């Protein structure tokens, strides 16, 4: 088997990392640096050969757009014994979109949802979430689908129940309900009109992460309106 090509350790790679040669002639990056390098590659999306080319303006150097929106959503939660009544929630989101949406069709979203206190027995009727979205920009129409990770204080079920007798089984249930959740989020009617951002009928279905799937959540984003900062 031919030996792998040796790499001169004195030559820096495009990312400024150096390679070393092993005793067998195999070359590899130093371990910590390798992971940093790989992470950098993933995040920057920059080809290795790019650094050897003359610097030139690229779309990635153009700042993206940051949008802040306020919306109204309605959601319910189901456990294996009970469900909450559908409740309205206010949603505040910040959304980052790269400027070159055609080449980088994704958005990063973070936000908060606040529900009324009558959602089950919620002690903290809030959700905090982060979401990565893939976008299919078609002019001003920018539908997308995303994966949302969050923590919810809204998946708290009423203690009483109709008869008020089942406290013991609810006590057993409570040990299986936790805040972390994962959800798929669809945005079929999202529009960017200049500095303005509109979205309607966003649909989200998700589940508690741990214990897995003990709580299912369904949320409908009714309307969200925002503007670029």
């Amino acid at each position, binding site marked *: 088997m031919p030996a792998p090509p040796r790499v001169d350790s004195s030559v820096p790679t495009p990312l400024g990392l150096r390679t070393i040669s092993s005793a067998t002639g195999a070359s590899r990056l130093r371990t910590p640096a390798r992971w940093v390098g790989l992470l950098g590659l993933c995040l920057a999306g920059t080809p290795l050969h790019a650094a050897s080319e003359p610097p030139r303006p690229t779309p990635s150097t153009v700042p993206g757009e940051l949008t802040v929106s306020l919306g109204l959503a309605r959601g319910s939660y*189901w*456990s*294996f*014994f009970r469900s909450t009544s559908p409740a309205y929630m206010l949603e505040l989101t910040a959304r980052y979109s790269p400027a070159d949406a055609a080449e980088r069709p994704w958005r990063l979203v973070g936000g908060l949802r606040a529900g009324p206190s009558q959602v089950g027995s919620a002690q903290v009727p809030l959700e905090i979430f982060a979401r990565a979205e893939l976008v299919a920009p078609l002019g001003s129409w920018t539908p997308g689908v995303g994966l949302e990770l969050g923590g919810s204080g809204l998946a708290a079920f009423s203690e009483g*129940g*109709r*008869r*008020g*007798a*089942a406290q*013991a*089984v609810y*006590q*057993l*249930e409570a*040990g*299986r309900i936790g805040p972390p959740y994962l959800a798929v989020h669809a945005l079929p009617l999202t529009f960017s009109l200049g500095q303005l951002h509109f979205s309607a009928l966003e649909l989200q279905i998700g*589940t508690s992460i741990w*214990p*897995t*799937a*003990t*709580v*299912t959540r369904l949320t409908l984003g009714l309307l969200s309106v925002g503007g670029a900062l």
Partner: protein
Amino acid sequence: MNIGHDSTDAAKTLQFQMPYMVAMQSIYRRMFVRIFLTLPLAALGCGQPPPTIAPERVALLSALADQVSGDRAMGHVLSLVAEHQADTPLDCSQWDASYEPDCSLTRDRSRAWLVGRLSELGLEVSTQEVEDGVFSTSNVVADLPGTSRPDEIVWVGAHFDAFYAGADDNSSGVAALVELATVLSGHSFARTLRFIGFDLEEFGLVGSSRYVLAEPDENLLAGIVFDCIAYYDETPGSQQALPGLQMPDTGDFLGVVANDDSTQLALDVFALSGALQTVQVLEVVAPSDGAYALTGNLLRSDHAPFWLEGDPTLFFTDTANFRNPHYHTPQDVPDTLSTDFLEQVIRLSVASLAWWAEVNP
């Protein structure tokens, strides 16, 4: 459940004449219902050992099962229905009784009847009381102590509260409990056999949840919960499928509901139903502990608290409202039930419990 049977059994195992994978494929094709396509496959796990029961054990279990009397069990149903009809319902003005059957729930006389029958059999009967106003509960617990491993408990339970006459729901289950106690109390077992009557199941698994919370450290090796086990109908269209499941459309099988922890028990029951030619079983295995929002219909009886606590437990049922049109109505009366079906369910239960508790020859 292969829970520490002696090496003689292991050396003389009956493999049911089928290679393991063929047996599993047969199970998948004919009897096991797939939940949401892939989950049950993961739940069953191809690493499970095949059911193995020594031939002489099969003969012994068969002889035990043959002691079951369907007529005697149906007599118990009639007695229990009479007790419910003579009882005074709970005062439903004390809660939001918007569900109409709430105002017909009775339990006191059926509990007294159950205590009486179990006591007559010489079992150690006790009650587990929880004071909570109108929702106070009193579970009935009767033990047949094991001869060599009394701390290891194999149990069977049924709720004794009922709406209206409650013939199928759940006098059939309580009658089966008493018939099991009648047959099994005439024998001895290595492990303790426990018979439990649960209170207030209809109001949210109240008695069984309180039982689990009060006895968290018990060594419960295997359990069966009966809830509605005597309604039978071979008419096409008589069986509705549980949401998300494919099921036969004839109500001529016993539903056996398991989770990961009780998969081996389900395999044992499946094997015994074939070996003893009892009743056709349809086994549903919920993944993990079964506590998923989408599997809520599989947690609708007293086995659920035991699942949540990790205790291996099976749920035996005729599927209640998915088959029985008289569910929670005044028409749930003994005339609508099948004595033969009830007898076969009890025969299968006798064999299963005796196998798990290790009947002494």
